[in-house]
């Protein structure tokens, strides 16, 4: 049921009567509407027609109509009618040249799909004087003619992104589709307003048109026309051309809508067009076409200028110590007679020479490193018309053979007891193989003796020279050996009396050695360095600086080779024929660090001063130039810092009071402060000072006492009057009470029940009322105030606590820590019987309680009278 999405070619042949035109020429007898293409894709008529004679294949595009002399052109009216109602939707007059035999081409695009309703087209001849008759209508019937059809158009058609598409619905008779179909154009056809489709999609883009019965929706393919670019045609086998290009923008059209390609009229697939090379063919035209458009790409070149060789195969090698021969073969027969050049990728870098020849199949690489591993690849290109390098061959690995080692780097080391010859181990680059050992020869410059040792193994890098009784300098020659042989000899002259007389300069924070040119230098200079305080045998390092003329030859500055916190001695020697000549020597630290700890921290008294002294930090622990010492005095108990002092000497004097102290002494360099040494010390008071102070104090106290005694004696009357005045006798007034304590009952829990009875004078009724009225304390006593106390049998005391329990005073409920004894009570009774009234309010305690402080006037045991 799917529709054919291709072109429909409908041919119509119509004859009509010839007319004469004004200029007397015969008008084309009658245009014949010969060929009408109905393109569903873009709703267009492609109308071809011809004049009366013959069938041709020439098709003129519309914009060619206006060419040539306007006066000779013939006009045609073209009319397009729509629907069964024959509504004119387009009218156009075109002018063409009156060729005897010609085909003319005209195109019109309908805004709606041709299936929506019937479209008719006709044309007629037209000039200034005469208008011919219309050709018969050519009508393409819409689907609305078929009474059974209900459908939406367009559907399943490709459209360009950004198209505005008008949909039509062919509904059943007397049925009106949904409101989206706003215009009726025929009896059964309704159309929508244009709908924009702005986004491409991998899937068909669907639209819901809302009519569930006849015209629910449609799906379209929204995409782009082809956008292929950068066509390049090359030959790889010298017998065919293959073309490559880039696809460009995605068209979003697939399957039968995807882009199809033709190269020079022959079909091919994307990026895979291969054609045989012909001498005439130097232009390649690629046409990329899909339903939405066509893209044409052209590449013009001579195939012999577009040679892109394939990779060499079967690459092999023959390696020597310093060169290798690479060989390969070609799989393409025509390569063997082709002028080519080749390059080699050696260890990832392009070899600095190219090789050329006809059908080149080998190359020799020289100046290689002996005893080394290499990788090599080969690629070739056209020598005559180089276009680009071909593909690389597979990577081939090979190793060069061993060669004799390079000369070793020799130096000498003087120590107090020995003189040694040292040499550096050869690197892989310089050893040219596996070092089997070394040979050393020692000769006297006077030719008196010659000593040779060939048995040094490959780990020995130092050899002691003994002068013995022989005088004269020594010439020492050292050679390394591997399987290929001995290295060139390295010779050094060792003076029997080394010249080490040179002043040593201190340096700070890094080494930069400079020296002046030494005129007798014949082989450059040597900078030597070793740890100043750890100069053991064979620990010297050196660097040879070759002879040259610029200032850089007399400066040496290295960083990163010195250990931090280690003192180095750096020396500069001139290399002469008579042996090394010491020019300059320095000591110092490349990088200073915190120093070690001072040693032997001690203290001594000098009068009231305390002198701290210590020994300096050991040399190998100084780790920098000692700038001074820091002394901190702390109180031992509180750990408080009392004093901080810095000094450059190894001692310090401190004035301190007696007490217990802790002393911390640390050295410091530019790298920081080192660990401190600690010393504790008590500073005691001296005994003669203590005795003198005691005597002075005692004497002073005795004198003051005597003076006070004498003064008191002489002023004794005044003192007595002041401290003990005479006390007047008390005076009694009125009758006073009788009071007694009666203990009448022994209770079972060990207490005695006692009663204290008081009788009040009738002369004080107000007081009695006041006390017996609202006072709850007195509520039990009625006429008498009565306190009942219970005392243990074995003690004649009335427990105050018990009293508190019995007579509870809510507002003064205080504890009573002491007991009141019966004897005391008797005393109180006697005292009260004495007519003494110490206070004017006439209140007195019957149960008086005493303690160490004195009266407690508000005891719970009190009874107010």
């Amino acid at each position, binding site marked *: 049921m799917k529709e054919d999405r291709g072109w429909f070619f409908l041919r119509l042949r119509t004859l009509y009567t010839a007319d004469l035109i004004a200029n007397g020429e015969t008008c084309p007898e009658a245009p014949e509407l010969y060929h009408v293409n109905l393109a569903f894709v873009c709703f267009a008529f492609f109308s071809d027609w011809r004049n009366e004679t013959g069938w041709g294949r020439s098709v003129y595009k519309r914009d060619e109509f206006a060419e040539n002399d306007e006066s000779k052109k013939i006009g045609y009216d073209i009319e397009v009618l729509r629907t069964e109602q024959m509504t004119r939707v387009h009218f156009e007059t075109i002018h063409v040249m009156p060729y005897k035999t010609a085909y003319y081409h005209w195109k019109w695009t309908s805004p709606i799909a041709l299936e929506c309703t019937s479209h008719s087209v006709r044309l007629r001849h037209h000039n200034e004087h005469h208008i011919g008759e219309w050709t018969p209508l050519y009508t393409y019937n819409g689907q609305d003619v078929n009474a059974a059809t209900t459908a939406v158009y367009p559907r*399943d058609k490709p459209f360009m992104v950004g198209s505005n598409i008008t949909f039509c619905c062919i509904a059943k008779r007397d049925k009106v589709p949904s409101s989206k179909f706003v215009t009726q154009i025929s009896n059964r056809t309704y159309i929508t307003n244009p709908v924009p489709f702005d986004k491409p999609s991998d899937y068909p883009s*669907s639209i819901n048109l809302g009519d569930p019965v006849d015209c629910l929706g449609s799906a379209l393919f929204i995409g782009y026309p082809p956008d292929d670019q950068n066509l390049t045609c090359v030959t790889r086998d010298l017998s065919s051309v293959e073309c490559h290009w880039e696809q460009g923008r995605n068209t979003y059209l*697939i399957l039968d809508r995807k882009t199809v390609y033709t190269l020079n009229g022959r079909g091919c697939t994307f990026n895979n067009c291969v054609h045989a090379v012909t001498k005439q063919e130097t232009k390649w035209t690629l046409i990329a076409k899909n339903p939405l458009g066509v893209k044409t790409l052209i590449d013009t070149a001579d195939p012999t200028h577009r040679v892109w060789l394939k990779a060499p195969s079967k690459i092999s090698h023959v390696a020597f110590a310093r060169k290798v021969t690479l060989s390969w073969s070609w799989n393409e027969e025509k390569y063997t007679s082709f002028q080519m050049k080749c390059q080699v990728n050696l260890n990832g870098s392009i070899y600095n020479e190219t090789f050329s020849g006809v059908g080149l199949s080998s190359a020799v690489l020289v100046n290689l490193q002996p005893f080394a591993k290499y990788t090599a690849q080969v690629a070739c290109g056209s020598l005559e018309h180089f276009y680009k390098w071909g593909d690389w061959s597979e990577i081939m690995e090979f190793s060069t053979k061993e060669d004799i080692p390079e000369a070793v780097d020799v130096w000498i080391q003087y120590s107090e007891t020995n003189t040694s010859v040292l040499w550096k181990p050869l690197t892989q680059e310089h050893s040219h193989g596996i070092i089997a050992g070394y040979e050393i020869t020692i000769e006297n410059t006077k030719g008196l003796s010659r000593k040779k040792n060939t048995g040094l193994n490959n780990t020995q890098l130092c050899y002691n020279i003994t002068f013995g009784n022989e005088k004269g300098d020594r010439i020492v020659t050292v050679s390394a050996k591997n399987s290929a042989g001995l290295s060139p000899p390295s010779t050094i002259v060792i003076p029997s009396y080394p010249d080490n007389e040179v002043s040593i300069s201190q340096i700070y924070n890094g080494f930069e050695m400079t020296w002046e040119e030494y005129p007798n230098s014949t082989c450059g200079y040597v900078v030597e360095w070793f740890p100043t305080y750890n100069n053991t045998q064979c620990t010297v390092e050196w660097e040879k600086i070759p002879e040259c003329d610029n200032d850089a030859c007399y400066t040496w500055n290295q960083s990163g080779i010195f250990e931090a916190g280690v003192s180095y001695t750096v020396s500069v020697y001139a290399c002469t024929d008579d042996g090394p000549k010491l020019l300059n020597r320095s000591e110092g630290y490349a990088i200073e660090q915190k120093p070690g700890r001072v040693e032997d921290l001690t203290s001594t008294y000098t009068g009231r001063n305390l002198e701290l002294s210590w020994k300096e930090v050991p040399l190998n622990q100084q780790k920098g130039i000692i700038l001074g010492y820091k002394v901190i005095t702390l109180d031992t108990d509180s750990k408080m810092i009392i004093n901080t002092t810095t000094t450059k000497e190894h001692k310090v004097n401190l004035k301190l009071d007696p007490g217990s102290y802790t002393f911390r002494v640390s050295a410091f360099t530019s790298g920081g402060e080192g660990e401190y040494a600690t010393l504790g010390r008590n500073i005691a008071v001296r005994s003669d000072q203590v005795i003198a102070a005691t005597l002075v104090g005692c004497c002073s106290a005795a004198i003051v006492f005597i003076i006070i005694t004498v003064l008191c004696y002489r002023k004794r009357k005044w003192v007595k009057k002041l401290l003990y005045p005479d006390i007047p006798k008390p005076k009694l007034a009125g009758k006073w009470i009788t009071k007694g304590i009666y203990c009448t009952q022994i209770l079972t829990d060990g207490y005695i029940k006692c009663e204290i009875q008081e009788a009040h004078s009738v002369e004080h009724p107000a007081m009695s009322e006041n006390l017996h009225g609202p006072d709850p304390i007195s509520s039990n006593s009625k006429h008498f105030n009565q306190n009942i106390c219970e005392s243990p049998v074995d003690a004649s005391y009335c427990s105050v606590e018990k009293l508190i329990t019995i007579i509870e005073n809510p507002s003064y409920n205080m504890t009573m820590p002491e007991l009141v004894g019966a004897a005391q009570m008797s005393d109180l009774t006697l005292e009260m019987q004495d007519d003494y009234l110490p206070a004017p309010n006439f209140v007195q305690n019957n149960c008086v309680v005493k303690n160490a402080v004195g009266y407690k006037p508000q005891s719970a045991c009190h009874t107010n009278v």
Partner: protein
Amino acid sequence: MEGAADSDTPVAQRSATDRAAALARLLHRDCTRLLELYKERENFLSHHVPDGERLVALGLCPEALTTAEQVGHVRSALRRCKELLECLITREVEEMGEELEGEYESLRKTVKDRLGHLVHSTAALLENGEGGCPPSPPLQCTEGQDEVDDSFAAKLWTYRVLLELIHWTDSASQTLHLFQSETQGQQQQLL
């Protein structure tokens, strides 16, 4: 030995039913997600209510009385769903090619594979094969698709197929759960 074999059988049966029920639940979730993905792609479906009769109808099957028979019915429906899904895939590949490999296409394949497993595993649960449904002839993809004559109609048909998948996988999930419960109860009674 015979007793041991008897005691093993219920366990194997139960675990097979468990697996089938779990697979049905998983498949139901997959189908629901597949429809979500399809509706994300085809926005116009968000307000569309499909009409017409069901794509998968069990008209030839006798009325299912027992749960086992219901399982047989569901299996027949799932088999038809699988055939519909295969037709759907064929149609979409014809229309869009095989180059598209998004989440929808991946899940579409997963659903097809799992549907095949579920059809196979439900068949293994049934003693009498179809459970009363006569074997139906293989579906021809062109069958009943006279109206599916363009891409838009194909999308509507795809939508209906996906709805059928959701419906029948849900039905399978429930029926198998019931079948599992009943089988378990019977085994406990026997023990």
